């Protein structure tokens, strides 16, 4: 079984990313589960999507210490969810901080460099993805989720093939967005080489 935990801030597209991964697994004939945050927390709160592949008799939620890969759309959320990571697990983190309103109000410094340094000091394999750069290159602010999917599959840790992900993208996305997302997928994959 492979367990993936995707985390971020409401509105960043974690749900779509988890669905793409689960459907790619199904393309390969594997049983997949996901669990998502839906409801009030989507309004700018913390969101977490769980993906479990080859997972007939198990919880839909990834328990602490059981994630093979932690995929964070935001550095602070990566730190918050580190306890879910397996001892040998991989962290993929998008270096694009979103300052919580509570921090702005309290005047607390929100420094993503420090957070990423902490993760690097604790975890052997950490991949930092420059989300802004990918968005600029693709000409859209909405492609981070697909780029991160690219990074995930290229690590090999999810045991999903590029072909099955591409097939899901073709089935799922509107034709006018396909090329842009295929580019994001490729750019995301480059970070894991």
């Amino acid at each position, binding site marked *: 079984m492979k367990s993936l935990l995707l985390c971020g*801030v*409401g509105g960043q597209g974690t749900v779509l990313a988890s*669905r793409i991964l*689960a*459907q790619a697994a*199904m393309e390969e004939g594997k*049983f*997949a*589960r*996901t*669990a*998502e*945050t*839906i*409801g*009030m*927390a*989507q*309004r*700018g*709160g*913390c969101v977490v999507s*769980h993906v479990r592949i080859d997972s007939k*008799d*198990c*919880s*839909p*939620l990834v*328990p*602490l*210490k*059981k994630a093979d890969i932690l995929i964070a759309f935001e550095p*602070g*959320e990566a*730190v*918050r969810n*580190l*306890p879910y*990571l397996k*001892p040998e697990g991989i962290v993929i983190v998008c270096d694009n901080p*979103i*300052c*919580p*309103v*509570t*921090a*702005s*109000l*309290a*005047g*607390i410094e*929100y420094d993503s460099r*420090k*957070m990423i340094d*902490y993760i690097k000091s*604790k975890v052997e394999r950490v991949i930092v993805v420059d989300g802004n750069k990918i968005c600029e290159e693709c000409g859209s*602010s909405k492609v981070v989720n697909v780029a991160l999917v690219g990074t995930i599959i290229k690590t090999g840790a999810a045991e999903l093939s590029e072909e099955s992900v591409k097939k899901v993208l073709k089935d799922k996305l509107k034709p006018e967005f396909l090329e842009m997302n295929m580019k994001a997928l490729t750019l995301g994959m480059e970070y894991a080489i």
Partner: protein
Amino acid sequence: MKELLMGNEAIALGAIMAGVKVVAGYPGTPSTEVLETIAKRNPGKIHVEWSTNEKSALEVAAGAAYTGARSIVTMKQVGLNVASDPLMSLNYVGVKGGMVVYVADDPGPISSQTEQDTRHFGKYAKIPVFDPATPEEAYEMIQDAFAYSEKYGMPVFFRATTRVCHSCATIDVGEFPEPTEGEGFIKDTSRWVIFPKLSYESKKKLEAREVELAKEFSKLKYNFITGTGRIGIACGGVSRAYVCEAVNDLDENKDIFSIFNVGTPYPFPEDAALEFINSIDKLICFEELDPVIEDAFTYLLGKHNIKLEILGKRTMDVPNAGELGVVSITKILAGLTGKEYTESQERFKDLPDIPGRPPVLCAGCPHRASFYAVKQAMKGRKAIFCGDIGCYTLGNAAPLDMTDTCLCMGAGITIAEGLDYAEFDKDDRSVKFAFVGDSTFFASGITGVINGVYNKANIVVCVLDNSTTAMTGHQPHPGIGKTMMGDVSNAISIPKVLEAIGLTKVVTVDPLNQEEAINAVKELADLPGVKAIIFKSPCVAIVKTKKSAEVDRDKCIGCKKCINELGCPALYMKDGRACIDKALCTDCGLCKTVCPVKCIKEEA
């Protein structure tokens, strides 16, 4: 075809497979997607509607089932409280076509006011309860629920919880059949008109049915035993998935534990449970919300004079509030068997504190402007702000701090009235505001306004009209002029309804025009009786704009007033100056009115 389906989608497709003909409901997390999915996948002949509230929805579904057609009504657990009046009586009258009452419970709670347990409601109302553990089981179970309902002429509960409703699984979906057409309504006053005599006769039948169903359910495939160990575990709903994983981790040889899975908590499958009791030395119960299964076992032991140790919520071995999970269950089971288990990791023991990220009103949300206008207008005056259920409950957070009370759907209005009556003989009375959303207004606000006018309350009703049911994912409602079938209908005008009720004054303002809004609040606050301000501006998640504002960093004095007054997620400080996140900002303009040096302008 194999599909990745969310629990709620699986339930919807299961209902279509069962030939459902009429579908009614009121949105509420985590139940909403059942009705939406039936509407989206409607093969053509299914009537699907968002009703004004859960009581209306349940009655609609009951009427349809009187004809012999199959129907489903969907709601969240607190919606069941609203629908309980017709439901309690309906079980005495019965139905002809299969009728499923789908209720989503919310352990945690994650998006609800209460941790109430619909399994209790089943017992109380004497209505059978089906309780799926996974989306794939839910898909199958709902079809059986329809069949049982029709076989016994009774409504049945289909109860799921958040982690079943909102998790996805791989499910093989069949070809959709045509909906069941009933024989039509056949007049029979001895059957369809509830009178004490009918109720007396029905009560006897309900009691007999409970016994019969308990026997039948003991053989049902959803109530089953796995494993052969002498430590018994009883569980139901999503707890079964957690237990499975915990047991897999702890019991490699599969000889320590055995598990009794309860798919129908009411009527409790006593015969199957007795068989289980006789094969174990000790029992521990894992279930979320209330100890329903645990109490059923305790009752059974007493009834049969059996001595067995039961651990659970009653013995404080299992937490009695909040969700369960693999970690909490593994910990408890490890403790019982003397195994080592720790969920923490030494390497993360110095994990830095990350500031919390509670949900907030979106950047550009018109509710922020409405709250801010009322706050500005009432500066220095005694005022109480009664809130209600919807996105605008988030108006309670700092820095707005504009929600002093919140109880249930529609209560803001009537709570404000009660606050007013309590000081009716005082001179120094505070101004009472009741904030209510447009969908909530139709669901259960109107009767409260009528009550206030009739009984001469002094309140200001603020209808936050963003032309949608925003919090649950933008469902249409009676004020929109669009139905769930995609038809155009007569849009019911909120100001006209209020005018017809006879309020002292009704005004409509654009909250983004702060000056106009503040003046309206000031004027209405001092009028007697019930007054209403409709703050009309569309939800930013629906009407999207490409515009955003920007800060002239040379002019910004770094006073933080925009951040400290508004708490907008698009605003943050960088190098001592305010900054705007272009991806979030909608250029609503509220921060421009707040900025003392006018350094914020529309982006060029």
